[in-house]
């Protein structure tokens, strides 16, 4: 069974981004870029399924600028077998990415496609669901447990108020939540090995998909600041403030 994993290169989660002074976007020049954390969990899960003998091949894909090759190499170092970069400088929105991924999965015929539930830059939480919709196959979002058996995948999902378990026919799309697994640290020997693995580069035009953006960003601003309040000396003072000033208890 083949597994396709989609990853995104994003501003590292430790970087506090700043809004540009002309309000055209956030300043990402010269900041550290990394693989989206939820996508790292997706790669890890696919590699674990291969190590468990469920999957035979793990193909990792991404779309974006040339530097996305680094992100793919990281996925290869975790244990993916080969990589595909759909190279473009264009502003890619979730619908366009879903179309690119559909074209790739039509070609690759993977049985399971795993993505992170959301990217930590645009926080859209859309691409996996859109891909499942375009492929007309079932989806299991926000996965915290994945079991593949008898031509089905059973997924435990993180939902409001607890967990939910659903069973899907294959092929299917899965998006990962935080607790699905803890991604391994990549070791130097595996980084060296990853450099020798195959990384194909294609252009969106070759896939014949329309990647025109549908949403226009008018402006990007700082969120309204919440000003700090007062420090209280002790518990008694706190209770007094809550009862008599804020009147919330």
């Amino acid at each position, binding site marked *: 069974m083949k597994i396709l994993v989609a990853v995104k290169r994003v501003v590292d989660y430790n970087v506090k981004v700043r809004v540009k002074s002309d309000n055209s976007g956030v300043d990402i020049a010269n900041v550290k870029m990394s693989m989206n954390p939820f996508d790292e969990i997706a790669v890890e899960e696919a590699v674990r399924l291969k190590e468990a003998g469920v999957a035979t091949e793990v193909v990792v894909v991404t779309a974006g600028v040339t530097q996305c090759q680094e992100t793919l190499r990281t996925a290869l170092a975790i244990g993916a077998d080969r990589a595909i970069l759909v190279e473009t400088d264009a502003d890619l929105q979730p619908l366009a990415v879903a179309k690119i991924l559909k074209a790739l999965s039509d070609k690759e015929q993977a049985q399971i496609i795993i993505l992170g539930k959301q990217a930590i830059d645009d926080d859209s939480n859309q691409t996996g669901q859109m891909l499942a*919709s375009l492929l007309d196959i079932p989806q299991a979002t926000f996965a915290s447990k994945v079991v593949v058996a008898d031509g089905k995948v059973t997924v435990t999902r993180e939902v409001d108020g607890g967990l939910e*378990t659903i069973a899907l026919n294959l092929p299917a799309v899965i998006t990962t939540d935080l607790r699905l697994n803890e991604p391994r640290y990549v070791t130097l020997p595996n980084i060296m090995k990853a450099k020798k693995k195959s990384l194909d580069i294609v252009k969106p035009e070759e896939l014949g998909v329309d990647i025109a953006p549908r949403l226009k960003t008018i402006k*990007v601003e700082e969120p309204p600041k*919440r000003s700090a309040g007062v420090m209280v000396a002790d*518990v008694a003072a706190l209770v007094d403030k809550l009862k008599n000033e804020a009147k919330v208890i």
Partner: protein
Amino acid sequence: MAALVIAEHDNLSLKVATLNAVAAALQCSPDVDILVAGSGADAAAAAAAQVAGVRKVIQVDALGLADQLAEPLAAQILSIASNYSHLLAPATANGKNVMPRVAAKLDVAQLSDITKVVSGDTFERPIYAGNAIATVQSSDPVKVITVRTTGFDPVASTGGTASVEKQAVADSAGKSVFVGRELTKSDRPELTAAKIIVSGGRGLGSGEKYQEIIAPLADKLGAALGASRAAVDAGYVSNDYQVGQTGKIVAPQLYVAVGISGAIQHLAGMKDSKVIVAINKDPEAPIFGVADYGLVADLNTAVPELTKALS
């Protein structure tokens, strides 16, 4: 044209998040309908008909819709989508699950987690974990939207006089099967609907401490329990307690943060709370930057003392 709100419900009752989504919908169009797709959901549909400002409730009842699975629910929404210029759902686990599926089939973009309606085609939404607010304009004929509930005050749950129109179920092949649900059993209020929330962070040190220190205070206040991502990652509590950009977005009357440093990720999920109290032994913790009342103290003594003082 009209706007359609996808109801958040459990067949028996309508969830409050629906009321926030209706509020956003009314800013997009004066004509707002609610879709209640479920199984044996007469009570939820009747509740939806009471919601202030609603024109019509469309009820679709089928066994396959009982568990709000994405595939049949999306098919149902798509079967009536052509009557609407705006399709909205609250940004709950269900809403986030189904709406992109609808948008892709319509070949339109989705606007996720909107916090403000600027006009019928322009909306504000947080990006980068709430570190920036983007104003985005959609050029698509239909706007598919998920609504961040804390961005919109709910409309009144009563006062409306909408009719309930039953419609036939749309055909959708069963591609996924519901197996089971394991909801966290609790007598406490639900996190996203609670008036008071007591949240614990990594400063607690263990799951046992969480139960020993945080739970009694929450019980005393009649509050819901929350946690930071760090506390969830450390295994103190399950993920459905998580408040933050990757967890739940809350805005209670009172939010008590105990042993939480205040990572931007966490602040993004609770900074719209009316009153924020922070208890932390580190005076430099960023949480104090957003707290209305800060107390620098050892949580192991201060929190039990607070619980006792409220008796």
